[in-house]
């Protein structure tokens, strides 16, 4: 650094000067126009400057590379939770505890290769609390989503969890048990077999992930369509006893809910005459509300959100597929989303089988509705 000040712009030599050389040049400095000494000094300076030029380039390159690496390290460290979560969330094989015991163990529809091609996703949501073994949670939310990028339309079709259907893993049971018994493989296969819809991808989310996601978004706005009163709401999100109950009251009308209240809003069903049907409606509504809030998140929010979702979300999509689909989410407004919830007759009727309250499907009515929203 000192050499640059001492011999500016001179042709360089081949020796890298140290501080002592610099001092010598400085101390040997002559008045302008002196003869041989000047030439000798000039020659020395020429050789030295050549060395200095290379040295400066090398140092500059090292500085650029060093600071560049340092900056990249800062970026990588910041996005590490997101990178880690992306690997944790994506690429899950479509298999479960019962994989292989039935003929269909993967989604029958191939991954989407054309960005304008419509595709179907099965959204699964579970009460992944301590009442259940980690790999045997019920899929208490099942929503079939059809995205048509070309027409810019989305259909959300809720499947009642108490629907009494043949399960892909064998036997007949409530449809929510398919995921519990056979993981995503059985859930996907059961929906495909019964509803006649080819599923391209599945996504699973646990309750804790939903709460954390809403909190990371600083809350969501909902219009509660009625007072929600539930004296026997499961207080199983935290605490040692997942069988405890809680009293909840969510007042009607527009309001902003935090994660826990949002979960209570979509999960409560005891105080609602529509029970699971109302719950399906509220789940769809919350998904749209979360989408609206997430639209305001920036790239810098991704690590926080992804980090908190890491252990609560799984999908068979690859990172590349998720990345290619994310822009689609921002492209749709609420008006382009059709929400379908089957409400009682003629789609199903309630009865009791083996002590369980179940819904018996009327497949001709259901298939008619499915054909309307999931053509081809």
């Amino acid at each position, binding site marked *: 650094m000192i050499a640059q000040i001492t011999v500016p712009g001179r042709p360089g030599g081949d020796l890298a000067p140290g501080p002592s050389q610099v001092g010598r040049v400085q101390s040997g400095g002559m008045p302008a126009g002196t003869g041989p000494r000047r030439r000798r000094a000039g020659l020395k300076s020429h050789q030295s400057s050549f060395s200095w030029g290379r040295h400066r380039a090398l140092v500059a390159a090292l500085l650029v590379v060093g600071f560049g690496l340092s900056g990249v390290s800062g970026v990588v460290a910041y996005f590490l939770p997101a990178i880690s979560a992306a690997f944790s969330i994506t690429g899950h094989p479509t298999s479960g505890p019962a994989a292989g015991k039935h003929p269909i163990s993967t989604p029958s529809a191939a991954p989407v290769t054309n960005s304008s091609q419509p595709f179907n996703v099965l959204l699964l949501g579970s009460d992944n609390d301590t009442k259940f073994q980690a790999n045997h949670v019920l899929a208490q939310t099942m929503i079939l989503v059809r995205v048509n990028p070309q027409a810019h339309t989305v259909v959300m079709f809720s499947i009642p969890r108490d629907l009494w259907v043949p399960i892909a893993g064998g036997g007949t049971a409530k449809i929510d048990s398919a995921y519990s018994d056979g993981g995503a493989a059985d859930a996907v296969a059961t929906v495909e077999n019964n509803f006649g819809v080819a599923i391209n991808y599945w996504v699973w989310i646990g309750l804790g992930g939903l709460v954390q996601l809403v909190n990371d978004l600083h809350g969501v706005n909902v*219009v509660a369509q*009625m*007072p929600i009163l*539930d004296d026997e709401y499961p207080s199983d999100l935290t605490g040692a006893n997942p069988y405890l109950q809680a009293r909840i009251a969510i007042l009607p009308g527009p309001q902003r809910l935090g994660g826990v209240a949002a979960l209570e809003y979509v999960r409560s069903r005891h105080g609602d005459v529509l*029970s699971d049907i109302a719950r399906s409606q509220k789940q769809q509504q919350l998904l749209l509300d979360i989408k609206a809030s997430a639209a305001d998140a920036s790239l810098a929010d991704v690590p926080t959100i992804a980090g908190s979702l890491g252990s609560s979300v799984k999908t068979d999509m690859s990172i590349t597929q998720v990345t290619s689909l994310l822009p689609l989410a921002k492209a749709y407004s*609420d008006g382009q989303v059709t929400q379908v919830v089957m409400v009682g007759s003629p789609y199903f009727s309630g009865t009791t089988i083996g002590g369980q309250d179940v819904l018996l499907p009327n497949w001709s009515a259901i298939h008619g509705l499915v054909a309307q929203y999931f053509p081809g």
Partner: protein
Amino acid sequence: MRRLLPPLAVMALMAIFGFAVYSILGTLKSNKHLSTKPTQSQALVALPGRIVLVQAGNIYSLTNLTFTQIKAPAYDWVQVETGPPGEILAVADFGMYSNVYLLNYQGQVVRQLLSEGSSQYFSNHWAYYPRVSPGGSTLFYSWDWVDPGSAYNVDFQIQAVPFANPSARAVVWSLPGLYYQGGDVEPIPLANGGIIYAKYAVDSAAGPGDGSTYSQLVYASSPSANLVYLTSPGQNCAEPALSPSGTEIAMVCTTNTLQTTTLQVASWNGTSLGTPVVISSGPEPASPTWSPDGKSVLYLNTLLTDKSSPFQLWWVPKATSARPGVPQQVTTGLNFTATSPPVWTP
């Protein structure tokens, strides 16, 4: 050793640079929906009188452009309502139940009006929407009624107690029409002794894709009187607010399918509503209240261009059922609780 100092210094600078990049990325997080305390903010519009409302469990008073916190006991305050002169009604949520208090503007408890907590789990209750009758003699409120035959069946009903003696036996003014439908909320006591309130119900004719829950404004002249329905199920209206003159009603109406909410005003002749006029068309207007002179409506709403933003105070000047005004945003960067109307006193 001295030779090592420059490269060490450069390496230290690199490390600092890397950390700076990490830190700067952190500052780029979206704080669009983060809110500040009202006391750290100023109103955008100076409104006459005093306005009291709730944010994050605390009660705040707005006078001119300045917010001050009403230092009430450290409860989770969720609703405020107009009380006798110099006082407000306030609801505190205790997790399993809610109580109603009479506070002065310094936040001191003048008296506890309703006490709904119990050591017996199913004897806890919720009391919300407390309203004092125009003469000051009766306290109306919504209270959760639990079916003795099924603890799943819980709905709000409207009941009333003497304001001077609220521990007296309550008079039940409404029973939910059917079970499991949410029930009756937001009573508005009238000068003639009757009440208007919002009744929630479920449309049994709803088809797939339809929202099947709706609310209607109803009028009851007495606890045993036949109900007069003021709005249709299709209008889906709630959150009534009666003008000081008693001749107009502001209300919030929602179309279920697209969740589009509007603030409307209709004339009221004591038995029926006139044709409503939309005075705020969205995104999510809530909890209207009238100015003391009856010439404007104050309410909560999100930002007009961002329906996912927290609720701010909005004001429609000179809003009447015949001539709607232009809504003005009164606050910014706050996050008011939108489930009860602000209190606006002279």
